[in-house]
């Protein structure tokens, strides 16, 4: 497995954990807005984009941002229309989505290597 193929999984997992940390453990952290916005605007979409293997950084970043915004809004919207508005739960869902997505991707990489 090439070293760079693990870069994004590592970044996404760390970002998800950091977003959870500044929301649920240390909500007064100074960098909370930056960490949270980075996670919400890039990570959920990048989880999906990594599966497409586009090999074009501009396209990957563009799709990652667009998909992230769409996933964030649609998950939050579904909760709102279901009468279950809770930003903390929405964030937890997105963190879970990213972690599961990255674990699946790492597993797929291992299978391909084998």
């Amino acid at each position, binding site marked *: 497995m090439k070293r760079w193929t693990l870069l994004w999984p590592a970044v996404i997992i760390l970002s998800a954990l950091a*977003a959870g940390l*500044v*929301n649920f453990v240390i*909500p007064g952290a100074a960098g*909370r*807005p930056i960490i*949270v*916005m980075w996670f*919400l605007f890039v990570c959920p979409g990048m989880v*999906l*984009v990594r*599966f*497409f*293997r*586009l*090999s074009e950084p*501009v*396209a990957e*970043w*563009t*799709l990652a*941002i*667009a*998909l992230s*915004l*769409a*996933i*964030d*809004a*649609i998950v*939050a*919207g579904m909760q*709102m229309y279901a*009468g279950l*508005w*809770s*930003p*903390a739960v*929405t*964030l937890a869902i997105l963190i879970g989505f990213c972690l599961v997505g990255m674990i699946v991707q790492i597993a797929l990489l291992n299978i391909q290597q084998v």
Partner: protein
Amino acid sequence: MGNLKYGQQSDALNISLLDTLEVGNIRPNLQVPKRPIPFKLPKPLDAIYVLLPLFAFFLWAVSLQHLPVQNLNGLGLISGLSPRIIAALVILMISFGLALQQPQMRVSVLALHLIFVIIILYGTENLIEEAPRFAVVYRHAGYAEYIMRTGTADPNLDTYFSWPGFFVLSAFVTQVAGYQSILSYAGWAPVFNNLIYVGPMYMIFTSFTTDKRLIWLGLWFFYLTNWIGQDYFSPQGLNFFLYLVIIAILLKWFKIPPKALPLVPWQRGQSRVRFPQLVSSFFDWLEAPDPFFMTLQPWQRRGLLASLLLVYGLVVFSHPLTPFFVLPTVAALVVLRRCRPFWLPIVMAIMTGAWIFFMAQPFLVGHLSLVIGSFGDVSTNVSSNVTSRAAQGSPQHQFIALLRIIMTVFLWGLAFLGGVRRLRKVHQGTTYVLLTVAPFALIVAQNYGGEMFLRIYLFALPLMAFFAASLFYSKHTLVTRKTSLWMTVAIIAMNLVLLSGFFFTRYGNEGVDYITYAEFDGVQHLYSIAPPHSILIEAWDDSPWQYKDYEKYTSESLYDALPDAVIHANVGEVVRYIESQGNPHAYLIITRGQKAYGATYDGLPDSTMDRLEDAMLKSGDFKLIYRNPDAQILLFLGSTKGGGS
């Protein structure tokens, strides 16, 4: 066409093997490995193209200082801007032109210029003004605050709650980021939006040409002409990005390859009809395949299509108008066999229709005539969008409005000339001409409160900017070409012309758009003293209010209800209007922004609001309960004296 051969490689721009295929060939995505590109050390002179933008950015940064609104005249931001900021931008324009024309052009240097110009052009006002600009941003803050507080979006409360996606997203992000309101970060929306527009536009342009100079000049022109101001914290600012992404996905990965295009009769040799040369040339051009195709694995296609529909889902969920820009554009691309799959516009239409029918019904019930009332009335739609805007307001505003028309015609003229020049040499580009003209179809449908032309300008702008840049780089070649001094001078001159227009066209109404701390303090005070269910009245349009407790107050504007009573200081009429509302608690607020709006857009004398305030206080029906330099609040006492005039 094209004089490139397979395997030819540019040493100047690191164009890869894949970029050098003949037009019409299939550019594979996965199978062909990229040839490693030798690293070239920069020459010492190259440093100047990095140092110049860095110096410009430094000069801009040290020149930022608070700009009081009193320093602005009717020409807007330019009248109060530090000359050093303008000097920094001029340096950037020159530096970009030089860097672009270098034989050893470096994309990283151009990207540095682009980032700096976006920050300076779209971020300066947020750094030197006071509260977030644009009164409507405060209402958007109110929508997000309502969702944050109640966890719902009541479509009976406001039109926007029938398309709440953007505000749901804003409310969610605001809460998990630890903010109390979107106003903490909304001022940065223009910079954020314009930065994220770069990616999809780059994808669109690279699906048309490999000429990096043309691509970067097209991007540069876009940012020098995006004066339309729809990139503030708003659903349309985000939706323009989503529109670009959808088009970029289609052009990048879903073009129909040449062999799949149907042959027209005269190509098959089956037609007995002889077409005139001009007509058959036109059809040849119409049928000519687009350059640069990418093959994808079926699972990649499915994944990208699902992504496209997910993004379109947010469009449908968050803005009433954007689906009607996306749909005709995608339909045109599919019907004219530029992109696939054929079912895509059908699915998109079903998604749009389903949302309107099931989720936006409360809006439609009350506003159907508003939606379809002006359908087909092109002359009225054009006049409400263009002529009426240019013929109203103060002389300086009329000058700004006229300049907007002139700069629009200038850009479109450049784009036309550049497009004709390019298409004559390249003989391709049906798709891109379609993308340029498709937004204009919307002028038939609606005037959108006099804003449809602004939206059309915006949605056509990326391709207009690209074709305008084509005037300078019209050959369909790789980038290794001789660069002439005259071309460099012409590009720099064009940059400076567009920059000069930009400050007037984008920031020409800054005296109205500017929100002072004192104005917002006045509005905050109003919400702190007015009991829930009070009626809040603004004397004229453009108050930074409704930023909280949206459903708890009735907000009215004398601008809409009784403009003549304001102009003639007819207090009796105002009193009768308030009494007709049947609410014992009524407050009237007058702000600096309202006065500026009236003077700028409606040509009212500066003293109009002061005369109204004096008349109200003299009538005994109102009592001044708050005053600061930019806001006054009057409490309605009841018609103790029967009103006066």
